[in-house]
């Protein structure tokens, strides 16, 4: 039975990030979530599995904190989930992540299609799908806004910066999808309840025999705060505030 793999990532919710006055980044209050666009990718994988009469399998590489993601992912229509659990996932670079995912995929039988979101909401590096394709020497299609599977052929419409490019590829293949691919429906009650009963396979990177040492060295990780004047007219009548602003803009010489 063909398997469609949906790769997803458990990320820190960027809305919860606090930047301290000394520009250090405080992630302690941040909650985790499945990266926004991964939800669209999971739905695309579920639909693709249906059209191939196959199974949709979720796959994630994360630290122990990623465990809650499994129930969330499984409640979105996946049949089962695989979880590569390694504390080093927090520091892994694009190369390491792709290596881990590719190694796990090699263990899965009958993989017809691997679907990833174009990028994750934390880094938006957009490396994962192409790298997985290269490591497994599979064809890759990125920026897919629409996909259609007919028999063993996948047709995709790529949304590029200056054109819509329709391409064709025989499965197996790796596809990176844009959120435009389909909406990500909110799981209903029964789906949430069913999630708890679906199988999860947990792997360790030692089992996969891969090296996760990052190939870049991060020398700094700090908040980006713009130094702006922050002159905000809040008190008083609207007319006065408007005049104050107009005067300021004229003085700045931007008009």
């Amino acid at each position, binding site marked *: 039975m063909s398997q469609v793999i949906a790769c997803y990532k458990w990320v820190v919710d960027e809305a919860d990030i606090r930047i301290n006055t000394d520009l250090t980044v405080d992630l302690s209050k941040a909650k985790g979530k499945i990266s926004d666009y991964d939800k669209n990718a999971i739905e695309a994988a579920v639909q693709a599995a249906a059209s191939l009469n196959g199974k949709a399998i979720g796959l994630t590489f994360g630290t122990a904190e990623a465990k809650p993601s499994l129930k969330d992912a499984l409640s979105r229509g996946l049949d089962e989930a695989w979880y590569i659990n390694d504390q080093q996932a927090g520091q892994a670079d694009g190369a390491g992540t792709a290596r881990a995912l590719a190694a796990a995929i090699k263990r899965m039988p009958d993989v017809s299609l691997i679907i990833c979101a174009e990028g994750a909401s934390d880094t938006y590096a957009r490396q994962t799908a192409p*790298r997985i394709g*290269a490591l497994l020497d599979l064809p*890759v299609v990125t920026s897919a806004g629409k996909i259609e599977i007919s028999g063993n052929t996948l047709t995709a419409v790529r949304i590029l910066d200056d054109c819509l490019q329709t391409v064709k590829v025989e499965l197996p293949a790796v596809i990176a999808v844009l959120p435009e691919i389909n909406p990500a429906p909110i799981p209903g009650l029964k789906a949430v309840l069913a999630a708890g009963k679906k199988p999860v396979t947990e792997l360790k990177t030692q089992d996969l025999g891969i090296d996760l040492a990052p190939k870049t060295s991060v020398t700094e990780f700090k908040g980006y705060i713009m130094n702006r004047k922050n002159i905000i007219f809040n008190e008083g009548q609207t007319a006065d505030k408007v005049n104050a602003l107009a005067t300021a803009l004229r003085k700045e010489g931007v008009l």
Partner: protein
Amino acid sequence: MAGVYIYSDKTDIAQEIIGFARAAGKEAILLTLSEKDAQALQNSGADKIYVIDGKSELIENYSKAIADLLTKANAEFFAVGATPRGRDLAARVAGYLDCAMVSDVSSIEYSGQNLQCVRMMYGGAVQQNEVLSGLSVVTVSAGKFETVKGEAAIQTLELEADTRVTVVETAPVVKVGVDLGKADKVVCVGMALDKVEDLQIARDLAEAVGAELGCTRSIAEERHWLPVESYIGISGAVIKPRLYMSMGVSGQIQHVYGIRDAQLIVAIDINEKAPIFKAADYGIVGDLYEVVPLLTEALKK
């Protein structure tokens, strides 16, 4: 051998990256699929321009071949213009080389033999500095470097293509709306606007100051009030006008990323705690329906 190998499907970015390599005293070798681009870039300072000759019209299909080329040539690194096609190619080459890659660098600088890269994360809230050593890949956005002049030798290079992905058809996209990336002044509308007719309030202000009209992502992608090219943000237009004025924009990180290079940022919003005010030079806390028409009158004079 060494040298910086460069690719971009956009000639302007290619020129800029060549400029970077030359300024760093490195050999700049440009790869291109297009004879036309090669001609256009003949005087851009590259040492060599290779026009790839192969069985596919998709540059991404040459990833493996390019990876082999880079290894054989003992290249220093591979710099690719950050466009959808460029990113795809770059990441695949990095995959075949199983080497490091930094995406969408906001700046790169040589430090000895290593490359210091800066990139933004978390929608633009956090900056990460990374050092690359050895053969690695970077993707670079437009507008980062100065171009140079100099003649390049153009050569054809036969490379093997992966023919598994083929093009069925290409439909050029007609861009509606203005290229905000080149606008001198921009007025931006946000989700606080009630109905599409209210865009007129923004248009009036834009007209009064001679600005183009932009919006936040949701206005374009969810409400479809303005075309997709109009939305400003990390996944949309990144602009650098002299003046940016927003109304009803809360100022989420992803949007603010798109305006960070604006010379002057002005915000109007009813919520004094809106994040946009932290990113603004000037602002008015108030109801945009009251404030903006008055401001339009005041600025007309």
